[in-house]
Every structure is written in structure tokens, then in C-alpha cells.
């Protein structure tokens, strides 16, 4: 079996044109994704976390080949698929599936749920007729839905059940990777747990890899193996879950963790460092480090030079001019 990562993304850039004026000419561009690289191993969950508009969904869409990147390469199982024509891409499509935040809008309301879930199997020519029905019934059972619900329509299910339909559909073609874009954000907490448990069980059973997109750090901590923190189109820190929560090195990660709430009143006493100011527009990102306008640690260099993402310890990548160098004390360690 190949040891190549399930997915590798190299130097990914995606700019959206901003059109303006009477003639709808290009007057600028939104730098939604601004040079992002990462990889995901078989059976691994990589969490992509960051605030609204930082480019998480755009990365998901590029990986799913729903939109074309401006630059950069996408490798599936070590094979470069960036420039494949749609016909050649077809064979690869099956390997990456997706589940969305809002299962309702993603499911055709006019088709019975059994037909919906069986769609990819049919489209890829993997099953027909009675076999298709059987496989769909098994999928229903596997995600905790009663097979006799196959006749029901999407609107007859609750939010959590609809998310299960979406999961069954994604699962149907044995993908290597599932891109899950805020899959539990629209669900009530009591139902979130059901879906998160199911996703973890399926991963362990089938060796699935997840690119898991969320703005919820607690959900991230629960489900991810590694986490990439994004800010305005760039990854600012990428490391294992443990290192991120216990030894994060980027000032933005610090700000994010410090701002997040937890159901423990005792935490009120912690020293919160609330970063001030708003997130700048990705149409006009600040020069240098994108975070410098809000960063309490910024130095002159930060305002002009974009810090590269550097591996400062095995598997721990940070993009910050004030990262620890030569084993000296880290600037954050004196303040946290």
C-alpha cells in the first residue's frame, strides 16, 4: 500500500475577482487563500480552524475541485491531479466526498432519501437495481437510520437525521477523504454529539481521512488529530492537537484560545488577553504578517515582511517573526 498522504496541498492560492463600475470590470481581488500547504494521512483528521472569511470553505471547494485554484498543486495519494481534465478527473472524484453544514440545502427535496443516498453509487456505476437498494439499506443502518426511512423525503427528517443522510451519501462510494465543512454547526448540542460520535466511529472503521472545517475550537479539540489555524487566507500555525492546546506558539492562536469560552465558571479568573480591533478585509489584507494590525507582539519586521510557515519543532509549524529561535525562551512564554 502506498504511504503517500491521502491529500497533499502545495502552495494553494485562490483569488476571487472583485468586479466594479458600470462595466463590471475587475477592480481588485479577494485573496481568499494566499499560499497554503498541508497534507492529510490515511485515517487522520486535519482540522481547519479560523474566523469567518479566512478561507476555510474555499480550501474545501478547491480540494473538492468545485472551483479552480489560482495557483498551487493538489495531490491525491501522491498523484498530481491539479491539471487533470474533467474526464480524467472522473476516476478520482469518488475518492473525495463531502458533507456540508446545512444538509437541507444539499439534499434534493423532491427525491426520496434512499434515492438521494444511492445517487453517487449509481453515478459511479458501482451498483444498480436490487444491489443498490441493499447497499443503501446497509448505509442507512450504519449511520443509525432505519432502512424503512428510505422512502421518506429530506424535509421529513430532523437536522441531525439529515446530517446522517449526508454522511451515508458521502460514505457510499468508499472515499479516502471526506471534506466536512462545519458539519455540526447547524445542529443543537444534544444532536451534535450523535453526529461527532458517528464520524469518529466511521473513521476508525474505514480508515477515512477528514478535512474537518470548523470555527468551534472545542469541536476541533474533540475530533482532530492535527489542527491548522488560519488567518486571512494563510495558515499561521499547524501542529498536533496536543501541541496546539498546550504549547501554541502563534499570537493569533493565543488570541483565539483565550477568547473561546468553556462551560466552567472557574475559567473567568484566567487572564484573558482579548485582542482588539476587527479582522481586516481579505480584499485589502495588511502587508507583512496579516495579523500585525492586532498583534500585541508585533515588531517592525511584521509590518513589512510576511513570515514564512516554519517547522520549529518536529511537526510544529509556525508563521511568526517572533517564533522561538535557537532554543531560547519564546516571547509568548513570559506572558501567558
Amino acid at each position, binding site marked *: 500500500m502506498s504511504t503517500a498522504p491521502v491529500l497533499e496541498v502545495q502552495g494553494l492560492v485562490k483569488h476571487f475577482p472583485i468586479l466594479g463600475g458600470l462595466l463590471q470590470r475587475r477592480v481588485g481581488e479577494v485573496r481568499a487563500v494566499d499560499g497554503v500547504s498541508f497534507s492529510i494521512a490515511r485515517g487522520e483528521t486535519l482540522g481547519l480552524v479560523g474566523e469567518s472569511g479566512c478561507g476555510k470553505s474555499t480550501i474545501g471547494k478547491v480540494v473538492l475541485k468545485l472551483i479552480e485554484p489560482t495557483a498551487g498543486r493538489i495531490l491525491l495519494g501522491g498523484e498530481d491531479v491539479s491539471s487533470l481534465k474533467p474526464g480524467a478527473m472522473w476516476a478520482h472524484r469518488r475518492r473525495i466526498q463531502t458533507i456540508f453544514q446545512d444538509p437541507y440545502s444539499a439534499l434534493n427535496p423532491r427525491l426520496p432519501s434512499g434515492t438521494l443516498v444511492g445517487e453517487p453509487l449509481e453515478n459511479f456505476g458501482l451498483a444498480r437495481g436490487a444491489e443498490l437498494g441493499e447497499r443503501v439499506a446497509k448505509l442507512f443502518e450504519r449511520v443509525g437510520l432505519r432502512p424503512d426511512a428510505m422512502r421518506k423525503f429530506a424535509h421529513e427528517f430532523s437536522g441531525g437525521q439529515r446530517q446522517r443522510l449526508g454522511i451515508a451519501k458521502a460514505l457510499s462510494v468508499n472515499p479516502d477523504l471526506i471534506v466536512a465543512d462545519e458539519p455540526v454547526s447547524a445542529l443543537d448540542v444534544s444532536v*451534535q454529539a450523535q453526529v461527532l460520535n458517528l464520524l469518529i466511529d466511521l473513521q476508525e472503521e474505514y480508515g477515512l481521512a477528514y478535512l474537518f472545517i470548523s470555527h468551534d475550537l472545542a469541536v476541533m479539540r474533540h475530533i482532530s488529530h492535527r489542527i491548522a489555524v488560519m488567518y486571512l487566507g494563510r495558515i499561521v500555525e499547524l501542529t498536533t492537537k496536543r501541541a496546539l492546546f498546550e504549547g501554541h506558539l502563534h499570537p493569533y492562536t493565543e*488570541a483565539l484560545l483565550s477568547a473561546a469560552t*468553556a462551560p466552567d465558571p472557574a475559567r473567568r479568573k484566567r487572564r484573558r488577553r482579548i485582542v482588539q480591533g476587527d479582522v481586516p478585509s481579505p480584499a485589502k489584507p495588511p502587508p507583512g504578517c496579516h495579523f500585525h494590525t492586532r498583534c500585541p507582539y508585533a515588531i517592525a519586521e511584521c509590518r513589512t515582511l510576511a513570515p514564512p510557515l516554519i517547522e520549529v519543532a518536529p511537526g510544529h509549524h509556525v508563521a511568526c517573526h517572533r517564533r522561538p529561535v535557537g532554543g531560547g525562551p519564546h516571547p509568548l512564554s513570559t506572558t501567558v
Partner: protein
Amino acid sequence: MSVDAVPVLQVRDLRTYFNTLDGVVRAVDGVTFDVGRGETLGIVGESGCGKSVTALSILRLIPPETGRIVGGSIRFDGRELVGLDEAEMKSLRGHRISMIFQEPMTSLNPVLTVGTQIAENVVRHLGVSWRQGLDRAREMLELVRIADAARRLDEYPHQLSGGMRQRVMIAIALSCEPRVLIADEPTTALDVTIQAQILDLMLELKEKLGTAIVLITHDLGVIAETAERVVVMYAGRKVEEASVSSLFAQPMHPYTRGLMRAIPRLDIEADTAGRRPRLQEIPGLVPILTRPIPGCAFADRCGFATDRCRAERPPSVEVRPGHEVACWETARVAEAA
């Protein structure tokens, strides 16, 4: 009782129902709580449990075409609001009781400048001149820490970021120094770093102005970090009420306990021996509110439920000082730890 001990808001057995094609929705079905002067009371519960309808009932903003307060009492400063005529309600709203919503864009007027909107509220309620209203507007923008307040007065809502709009909403809501501010999911639409700024601001202004806050949220984390007392709602009813420390240290209602075990925790190491632990699920779904629920609304999903739970509605009983639970099986629940 000293004047200070008299709650500024007393809600008693509030019932607000809606007539819909599917039948009568018992959106709020007998809810009781007090809000002390200058206190922060949190109301928490899942989507559809009646949090917003409770808030709208207090402000008497239930759409009369479909909904009605069918029972109970709401006393503000000792004065009954249920049945109060609309003219008197208008003079209270935005003045003595204010509200901010999740999505400021829906409550801000898109064609009026920020300054005009704050000044209007001040002029209407305090009867000052327009000039004084605008002065107050600038003062309020400074108070909510909007940089460059004088310039922002002349801007329109769409020119502001989400966080700034919520600051403007807070500025309007607090412009007449209300006794009670009802904040319905005020930070849910905001990013976490901005949420932290806004919550901080609300608590700081509460101290400064002595305003009581009713903070409505589905987020137990927000409650834990801001509220003093908490009301937990489920299916239109209050199932538990306690000080924030008592609630989080010893939740007593099976639903509250279930919720706390169902949420992933930011502050607790998730993996044990390299494995991700399972979250505890609450089986089943919330009940349909058009069907009368004779017993406990949680009975269908509750591991402790008995026949009595399904037949008789449990009253809210004090189990520890200041800690009330509406559950028949409190003794067994307590033992289950």
C-alpha cells in the same frame, strides 16, 4: 425587604402561545424567574425552547396576528406589563427596558446614520433637544469604544463591520440608561475574538450603569463566563435555575446533565491513551410543541423517567439554597452523581 432586594423584573408562570396551521404552539409554557437589580441572568437552552419568545413577551413584542400571552404575569419595577396599553409600553421600550438581537442588521435602520438612530432614541424618551441627542450619541459611541466616534456618527450601518454594528446596537440600547437590557444571542453571529470583545464590553457597561442583563444564549460557555444566575429552558419550560457556580458544579436536572456531557470541551484534554472519547448522546428529539405534554417535557429522552414523569408535570422545587429543579426523580438523579 429592602428596596435593593426587590427584583427589577418578576416573571411568573408566563405562557405565550401561537396559533399555527399545525395547531397551538406552546412556545412558553409556564416560566417563572426574577431578575435582580444590576444582575446578569442567563437563559440557556436549545433551539426552539422558547428563549426568544420569553424575551419578546417581556417587551410585549409578540406578533398579535398569531401569538398571545395567554397567562402569567410580568412585573417590571412592581408594575404589571401584561395588559399594559401599547402607548405605555412604547415609553418603556428602549428607555427602561432595552433589547439587542443576534443580527444587528435586522434592527438597525439601513437608511439612517448611526448618529441619527441613537439620537432619535434619546430625544424620544428623554425629551432633550436634537443637539443634545447627538451629543449623547457621540458619548455613547465612545462608551462602546468605537474609535473615531465623531466620524462614525455620520456613517450608515452597512459601512460598519459586524462587531461594530453590535456595538452600535448596544449604544442605542443603553443610551437612556435602562434598568434591564435583554440581549438575545448578542454574539452568536460574531467571530470568537469579536465575541470576547462584546461580552467584555457588556459586562463593563453593566457595572458602570447598574443595568441588569438578561443574556439569552444556547452556548453554555458564554453563560459560564458571564452570568451570575442561570435559567435552563427545555420545550417552553424552565427545568432548572441556579447560581452559575452551583449549576456547573452540580447540575441537577437530567437534561442539564445530559447537555453538559454532550458538549465537547475546550478546557479538558480530549484524548485518553491516544483515543478520542465518546461524547454522551442525548437520545431522541425535542418534543413537538403543538402536542400537549402532560408530564415532564424531557420524559421521552430521560434515563430516570418513571410513569409519574410521563403523566404529571414536575413542579420547580428548591433542592439547595437558590437552586431549583423541575424533576420528580431528584433524589435518584443526585445519587447517580
